[in-house]
């Protein structure tokens, strides 16, 4: 029986004008998306390779002595571009693409010695498109299509499902048969879901066909898996709005009121909450302002100045074991690099915490949840950047250990890392230096998306249960 009603509803939908428009809209959007990202990944990968090899070349030339590696550091570490960026670009223009492991260069020079600072991690802030005069626009991605267009379509397919049948009296006719109301509701839901999924799947296939055949996006098995989950998420998201539509439609007797209420909720969920709430919360989780950062850098510098005011009179030497003076220099340079890096990381952590707090607040809207879930799966966006930064920190530790251990292995070094005199100056085998490679971890991607997917399922269950309860009580 359920299939019988579903079929009837389905025919109704498929013959309707809105189905035709939905098809045109979704296919149009997906084509726009495909065109926008046609050469994008290839260009990004080439740029990434170029930058990484430039960074490695620099490291190779620094490998002629351990001391150079100590002062120059591993150089900039780059984030690998993800092939699925067409699914969600995740505000990538606002997120930096690298973290820098570099030194500050010459610190002090005199006739007796010359000192360079030790490398430390720095986290550049992105400053996008300073001379791009184009008007603002979004390069439409799947996230936009799903969160905005698909939810609107879902509302347009359900706002009158129950209220219009009530208006026309056909609901009474249907229910006079021996059918449970639950069956009617489920079949209406299924019919709408199938109707929307047809143009959506067609549009997705056209989009993937364009991207795949043009060779601009390499899609391996794991990417297909991620795409599959993204499409699944899209279905869950559509179901949420279908459930909402059924709920409102059964509560309100007139179609136009039902549409108005639905649009109101849609505006709040899709337009208002994802943008505004996040920005409003910035005050609740204050970050370190750049003035504060500058002040702390200043106070750090003056603390060192007081603590080590005798330093410039001490001359480091290559004596083994290291002299007191060499050790003092080493202590200063290590502390300077360590404390400044700690400050940089504290600043970064405060910024990340602020954004993550804002992101978790915006999750009260399913439109945000779906966007974050897609971003996590596509390997873009803020979650991915945080994962990248974690890898960077792990690598920084590895690199530091490598320097200490290589120095320890050199019998001709006084083992006072920092000043030139206290550090091994032997060439280092380039192959033995740990290299940074950004790995995109799929299990982490799924893990990050899991919370959002669960949240979306919860939304769906609540709304559908609500629709069921309210439909049970409808007076025909």
């Amino acid at each position, binding site marked *: 029986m359920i299939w019988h009603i579903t079929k009837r509803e389905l025919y109704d939908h498929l013959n309707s*004008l*809105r189905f035709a*428009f939905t098809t045109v*809209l979704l296919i*149009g*959007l997906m084509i*726009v998306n495909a*065109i926008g990202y*046609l*050469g994008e990944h290839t260009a990004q990968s080439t740029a990434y390779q170029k930058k990484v090899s430039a960074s490695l070349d620099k490291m190779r030339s620094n490998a002629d002595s351990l001391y150079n590696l100590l002062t120059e550091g591993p150089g900039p570490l780059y984030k690998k571009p993800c092939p699925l960026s067409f699914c969600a670009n*995740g*505000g990538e223009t*606002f*997120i930096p693409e690298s973290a820098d492991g570099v030194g500050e260069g010459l610190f002090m020079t005199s006739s007796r010695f010359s000192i360079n600072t030790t490398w430390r991690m720095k986290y550049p*802030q*992105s*400053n996008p*498109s*300073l*001379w*791009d*005069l*184009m*008007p*603002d626009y979004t*390069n*439409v991605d799947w996230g936009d299509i799903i969160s*905005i267009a698909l939810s*609107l379509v879902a509302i*347009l397919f359900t706002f*009158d499902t129950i209220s*219009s049948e009530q208006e026309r009296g056909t609901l009474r006719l249907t229910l006079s048969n021996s059918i449970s109301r639950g069956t009617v509701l489920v079949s209406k839901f299924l019919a709408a879901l199938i109707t929307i999924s047809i143009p959506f799947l067609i549009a997705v296939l056209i989009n993937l066909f364009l991207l795949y055949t043009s060779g601009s996006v390499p899609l391996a098995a794991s990417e297909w898996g991620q795409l599959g989950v993204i499409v699944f998420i899209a279905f869950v998201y559509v179901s949420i709005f279908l459930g909402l539509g059924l709920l409102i439609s059964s509560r309100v007797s007139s179609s*136009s*009121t039902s*549409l*108005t209420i639905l*649009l109101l909720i849609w*505006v*709040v969920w899709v*337009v*208002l909450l994802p*943008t*505004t*709430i*996040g*920005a*409003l919360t*910035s*005050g609740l989780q204050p*970050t*370190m302002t*750049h*003035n504060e950062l500058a002040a702390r850098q200043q106070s750090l510098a003056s603390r060192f100045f007081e603590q080590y005011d005798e330093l410039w009179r001490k001359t480091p030497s290559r004596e083994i074991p290291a002299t007191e003076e060499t050790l003092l220099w080493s202590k200063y340079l290590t502390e300077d690099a360590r404390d400044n890096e700690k400050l940089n990381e504290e600043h970064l952590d405060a*910024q990340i915490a*602020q*954004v993550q707090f*804002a*992101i978790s607040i*915006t999750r009260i809207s399913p439109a945000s949840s779906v966007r974050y879930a897609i971003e996590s799966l596509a390997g873009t966006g*803020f979650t991915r950047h945080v994962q990248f930064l974690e890898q960077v920190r792990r690598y920084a530790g590895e690199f530091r250990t490598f320097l200490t251990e290589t120095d320890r292995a050199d019998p001709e070094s006084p083992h006072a890392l920092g000043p030139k005199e206290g550090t091994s100056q032997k060439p280092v085998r380039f192959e033995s230096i740990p290299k940074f490679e950004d790995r995109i971890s799929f299990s982490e991607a799924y893990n990050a998306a899991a919370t959002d997917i669960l949240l979306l399922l919860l939304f769906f269950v609540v709304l559908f249960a609500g629709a069921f309860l309210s439909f049970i009580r409808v007076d025909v």
Partner: protein
Amino acid sequence: MFLTLIRRELLDNLMTFRFAAAVVIMLLLVVANTVVLIKDYEGRLADYNTAVKNHRQELLLENKTYSDGMLSFWGTIILDRPPNPLSIFNTGLDKRLGNEIRVSHIFTPTIWDANKHAADNPYFNILTSIDIVLIFQGILSLLALTFAYDAIAGEYEHGTLRLVLSHPVRRGYILFAKYIGAMVCLFVPLLMSLLLALILLTTSTMITLDTDDFLRIGGIVLTSLIYLSLFYLIGMLISAITRRTSTALILSMFVWGFLVLVYPNMILTAVDTAPQAAPEPAAYHQIKRMWEELERKRDQFLRNDPVPGEGWGFDIVDMEGRDFIFSGGDDKPSKLLYYTYVGSEFETIDEKSEPQVRHAQNFYGFIGPLTVNTVERTWLIRKPALETIYVEPANRGRMLLKFSPAGLYDAATEAWAGTDLNGIQDFFRAAQRYRQAVVNHFYDEKIFASRQWFSSDQGAVDWDTLPQFSFQRSDIGINAKRALPDLFLLLTMNIFLFIAIFLVFIKSEV
């Protein structure tokens, strides 16, 4: 009779649920976003004030000589672009483009040479906030359509149209009454939300609006009204043609989706993927050659002057026996920027070097004006080249956007607010004029050939004697001039649509 019709329409609309919903939505959106936008503006204003203070301090602290202030990379004359308070209404390019620019006689300052002062948490930009105009553009237009879709089709369906027309009423009157009634109803949420936004604006102590600003806001309100009316008329036309409310509604929604969501992004994606300019445009090499010519002339001067050797430090040493000379340049092919400079800097000059000072003065008196001259000549090439490479594609994109009313509306309100490209360019034009004034001052006071150009042994430069920079946003007349073409286009569209509706309605059978 006409008044009765209007009253009927007005009451019809006011008593509906959708009117209440429209008011609630608009108030919610505008108030929430205004709070965010005001906070953002205050943040940017604080950044601006800090930057101005720091730049001033650095200039006074770090620079003892003119050449230091003009040539070195540390603590030079830097102008800051204040944030525009009307960016709360339409952010435009105000937030995105560079807001600090260095002024020096060695290059002409443009948007492309500008930098941005640091922000507290740039990551926060991923949570994009929307400005007030964007709310009107997206949501108010949607509301206008929900008011319009059943304006005519609904009456057909209910049969009330037949009833009304059985009275001696002109069809044109009916249309007009419907239009007025609905527009008044739509104007209420628009005005209420704007008023609340203004109240919020006035509660902020950091934002000061002058009379011109209120006139500009008036211009934005006027443009919003015309834009709103355009969408109402689109809905009405659909309603008159389809004659069925359900069809009209669906069609309206998709037209809205296309005009507001799809078209602007689609067209800009298409423009953006269009072929880009070469990384090293031909004009760049021309500019570079001019500078190389300057270097040749400089070397020739040094060869021909009575001092042996070809250094521009002229072997001057200070009391401690140091000689400090510097040279440098900037080479950014993508921005068509190329320049080179040489200079020297002394805090004290040893007595033995005193005879050399005259030669140094001669040299800098020669190279300074030559540099200014070269900058002027390269600017003649650089300016049109920058226009072709950066401004023209952007303007093409803007032009194409205007095929959608949403694009027209955005452009017009940007022009009113002064956050459009012209408004930003105004600042950089002012910076260029200021640079010219500084250069003229150098000529007038013969500063290029002065001792203070490279030495502070007889006192540091008093930077207060330089002309002061001040930047005023363009006055309301210019804003209006920039906004009017788009406003006029919107108005014309309105009239055409009204005529079309009239024709459809007059011919239809009841």
